[in-house]
């Protein structure tokens, strides 16, 4: 019975994403409709160089961030944290900023590597601190994370100011798909790989969310899983920051909404979380393209509003139990 309901969720999410996928291919500043794309030969180029990569980038980003949030919530054992609002993304930002200052000519791959390392460090510090906050006050952890992210962001702003890199910082700190072209987004596929990896260890992640003792009792190498989880979170966040910029709230609201519908058995929910994340980000990107057509509003800004509203609703409309 439950299995069937879960399958329904998956099918619905898949259908919605498919519709948005087609819609996303049809919307853009250059007025080419889907019909034009089909007929004209120039249209195919447009599709292949700009719109398809952009759509794929949004899907990969959304799925990746939602899964990163899911894993972070399992590790922190707190529903209200996610990488983009708890210092991970800001650490990545700081990392790429520092490597850009120190070695401007470094390749994008190297910069991503440094950003990932910084994100790993920043998330590690956050989680170490979060585990020491009293579990009786679950709201302190996300609050701590928000301000921790803010402090890291202030440090980044200061450095960028001194190094005259504020414009770069603005690109990294506000997610935007308008710059996505073929050849400039492929790093995001790393995220897809990590999502698949998370799917393989989904059972272990579910058990991890039950706590350290329950995990050890069931024979899971808790420390190793912690490291794996951290790496997934850090790399997904870093790649997103480098290619797209920070997109807030995806990792927060999507896992929570799915959890309310389907529970926390990640073997069942993980694919739905990934699809829903993709849906949310793609929908916000399409919205951003349409609100002030033909100008574009960055997805980070749209998501800031949508995500904050959803988050507030979540905070005040909790289910009757727990």
């Amino acid at each position, binding site marked *: *019975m*439950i299995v069937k309901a879960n399958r329904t969720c998956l099918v619905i999410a898949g259908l919605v994403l498919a519709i948005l996928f087609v819609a996303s291919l049809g919307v853009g500043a250059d007025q080419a409709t889907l019909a034009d794309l089909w007929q004209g030969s120039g249209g195919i180029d447009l599709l292949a160089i700009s719109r398809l990569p952009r759509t794929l980038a949004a899907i990969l980003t959304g799925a990746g961030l939602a899964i990163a949030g899911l894993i972070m919530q399992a590790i922190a*054992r*707190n*529903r209200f944290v996610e990488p983009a609002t708890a210092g991970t993304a800001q650490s990545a930002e700081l990392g790429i900023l520092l490597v850009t200052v120190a070695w401007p000519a470094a390749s994008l791959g190297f910069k991503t590597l440094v950003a990932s390392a910084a994100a790993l460090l920043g998330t590690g510090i956050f989680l170490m601190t979060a585990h020491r906050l009293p*579990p009786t006050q679950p709201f302190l952890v996300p609050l701590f994370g928000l301000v921790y992210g803010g402090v890291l962001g202030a440090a980044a702003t200061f450095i960028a100011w001194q190094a005259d890199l504020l414009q770069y910082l603005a690109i990294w700190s506000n997610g935007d798909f308008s710059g996505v072209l073929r050849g400039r987004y492929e790093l995001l596929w790393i995220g897809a790989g990590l999502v698949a990896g998370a799917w393989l260890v*989904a*059972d*272990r992640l*579910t*058990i991890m*969310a*039950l*706590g*350290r*003792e*329950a995990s*050890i*009792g*069931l*024979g*899971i*190498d808790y420390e190793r899983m912690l490291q794996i989880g951290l790496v997934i979170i850090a790399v997904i966040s870093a790649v997103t920051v480098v290619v797209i910029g920070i997109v807030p709230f995806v990792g927060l609201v999507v896992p929570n909404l799915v*959890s*309310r519908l389907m*529970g*926390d*058995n990640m*073997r069942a929910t993980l694919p739905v979380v990934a699809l829903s994340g993709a849906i949310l980000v793609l929908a916000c990107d399409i919205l951003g393209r349409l609100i002030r057509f033909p100008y574009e509003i960055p997805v980070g800004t749209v998501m800031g509003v949508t995500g904050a509203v959803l988050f507030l609703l979540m905070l005040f409309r909790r*289910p009757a*139990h*727990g």
Partner: protein
Amino acid sequence: MIEINGVSLAYDVTNILSDISVTIPKGGVTALIGPNGAGKSSLLALVARLQPLQSGAITMDGLSVASTPGKVLAKKMAILRQDNHLGSRLTVRELVGFGRFPHSRGHLTAEDRKVVDEALMLFDLDDLSGRFLETLSGGQRQRALVAMAYCQDTDYLLLDEPLNNLDMYFARDLMRSLRRIADERGKTIVIVLHDINYAGTFADRILAMRNGRIVADGRPDELITTDMLNTIYGFEIPVTTIDGRPVALPFR
């Protein structure tokens, strides 16, 4: 057989356990009793490798708890801790199913499902199996966790005050089930209990702890006497005999 040899535990300057050596043979129910802060839960946590050993050694059927891989030990022993707060939204059946993880690594076989069904039956959870944990009462949740530990189908079952949150009916029911699986399936059960009369009724052997040491060790009828209880708890407890069993009356 669980062999505990020279185990000590200290945080900062406080000694939690001092040089404990004891052997728990295979089979039967062994109860750990003692006043608050005696170190019962700590000892159990060390046996269950939830905390690293500071000194001494613990082996289980010859396997060192410190060096044997967690995967192997998870098929050897299951542990139920006091803290039954779970943040996850899982159904009872899903949770109990995770008890099969050490065997199936997540892919439940028909055999696994049979064990899960059996555990749900045994602990009276079949009506609740589709409910999410957070909608259950404390006692129901406790039973779900016991069922999960049972599902692990291990030779050894370690339980830290499993009667917390249970009313009289389910407390007795749980103890009877434990007794039965010890008798019928030869499981070894080590259980921390607060109520000495439950220990007296259901255990084969009682280990009494105080101030981080084992102060008494023996059959219920040897342990539950006014003198012994005075050594363990530090106050006078009248003991009477009902149906040939000693019953402590620590009420007046």
